[in-house]
């Protein structure tokens, strides 16, 4: 746990330093009697940095427990879902909602907790088609139709 905290604290500290630097560089700080747009972000970056240092200090004080790595395989599934979600957001406007959603659901049902092909295909069709009918046709959400565009 301590190692994870140290990693998180270091990342947040880095973010705070960049944020402080950027607010000083980009935004007028003003004066205390008339604070400018940079006043609040600068102080918040400082607060974030200070708290990250506190967490870093605390994590270094606690002896790290040995960590089990049994979830590595499942983490790959998470990475896979994230990658497909990123692809989904890029492809949505190009191939349209129904096809993008069909392949996304199919991926989830075959890869994350593998289901039989007929079930996965059926559920993917149901999710893509059903949600398109409900949202785009009934509720008038202008989802990109892609190949189904008239």
């Amino acid at each position, binding site marked *: 746990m301590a190692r994870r905290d140290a990693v998180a604290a270091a990342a947040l500290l880095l973010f705070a330093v960049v944020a402080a630097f950027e607010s000083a560089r980009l935004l007028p700080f003003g004066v205390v009697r008339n*604070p400018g747009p940079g006043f609040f972000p600068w102080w918040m970056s400082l607060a974030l940095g200070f708290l990250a240092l506190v967490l870093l200090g605390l994590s270094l004080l606690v002896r790290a427990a040995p960590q089990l790595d049994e979830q590595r395989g499942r983490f790959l599934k998470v990475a896979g*879902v994230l990658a497909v979600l990123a692809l989904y957001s890029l492809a949505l406007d190009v191939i349209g909602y129904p096809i993008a959603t069909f392949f996304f659901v199919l991926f989830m049902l075959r890869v994350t*907790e593998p289901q039989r092909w007929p079930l996965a295909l059926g559920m*993917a069709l149901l999710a893509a088609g059903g949600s398109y009918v409900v949202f785009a046709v009934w509720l008038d*959400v202008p*989802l990109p139709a892609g190949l189904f565009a008239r």
Partner: protein
Amino acid sequence: MDILGSLAQGFAVAATPINLLYCFLGALIGTAIGVLPGLGPPATIALLLPVTYGIAPTSAVILLAGIFYGAMYGGSTTSILLNIPGEAASVVTCLDGYQMARQGRAGAALAVSAIGSFVAGTLGIIGLMLLAPPLANFALKFGATENTALLVLGLMMVGYLGGGSMTKGLLMAALGLLLGTVGLDPIVGSPRFTYGVFKLAEGFQFILVAMGLFGIGEVLVNVERSIKPEVLQTKIKGLLGSREEWRQATAPLARGSLLGFLIGVLPGGGAIISSFISYALEKRLSRHPERFGRGAIEGVAAPEAANNAAATSSFIPLLTLGIPGNASIALIFAALLIHGIRPGPLLIQERPEIFWGLIASMYLGNAMLLVLNLPLIRLWVKLLQVPYPLLAPFIVVFVLVGAYSVNNSATDVGFTVIFGLLGYLMRKFEFEPAPLVLAMILGPQLEASLRRSLIYSRGDLLVFFERPISATLLALALLMVLSPLIRRLLQRKFWEIVGPVPEK
């Protein structure tokens, strides 16, 4: 106008067919997600936020509030039958509820839980109804200085009470405040951290952040964990419990309701903490503490009453001070903001139909929940048999459509996925997403009131300590920062009182 007259007006609003329908839907969805492990109230409310765009604000808030307090009812079902809390506020119910189910007393446990929730919820609404108007009147005296101090206190409390480490809670709050500065400056309107990207000028849209952090983040964590609930194969009989069981449960119900109400008013996960404290209190007061953890009905009655009363009273800071105390309430806050309504001291005066309509809908919703959760309990048990892997893609699809529909933009879907990744990482590194979300909402208000206070006082920082209300609020905030020790003490005390938990 007197309270009864206002309440009558509230019932006139809540009892219209459309609002009754939304109230019922809220109670139904709330129970369902309370029952289903792996989807909490904040995630569900986030998913449904886009749906509320097209409906009247009163209906929207009735629907979303119903989901929140409905989940408190449903959460106990999985605690009792599966030993898995449907949501965090039902963790303690597992200790005795599951043992009761194993002894063939699942019916009594479910009955005490549902009826206790109804009683506590109703008492909570009465308290909310009586306490909110005077508190809102008091808050009307607040100027920029007091508001600054109040918001600082609210953020400290969220960090302190949100569960987990206080340092991490405050870190998330600071990160949320910082992320909240992206977009237009709240005083002069100049762009900040937009780097020429037009989309960033409106800031990180709260709804996309919430859907990513809570919706996608939660699904990703569950994909990794693999939820496989096994329902206890027990016949649910004796659904009203025996007279003796009710005799034992009555006093804990009353104490749990009162304690839950009082703790729920504090921002930061009141429902969760109140259930723990009320369980510890009952064990301390019991003449036979050794029965706790082995199927004591008091161990179900008190925490269930406490979490329901707390869920209701957590609306008080939102409706009177404009401070959301937990993630679900923050999302309800966001729903109101989307409709151009700012919750706070003026809400009761300016939009009485929303305030009193919500109160009246809570009375109706609690009655609906009682019906949904007792006679229909077998139906909910069936729902538990839907495998999570089949549910997860539908949740994600709902999030993606919701994210797209905010601005009809695929870029927003990308933003939501990025915040989903952040939500996943936060859970992996044991950071609570709630303080970040709350800080993002409160950040622009805090910045505006802080800068106004400094302008009015010509930069004199002592102004925060010279005015009695703001000085008191800041003193409380300081106390919060200095008191993680109290929390550690309380936790140690809880486990001392509760003792070792018997294995399944």
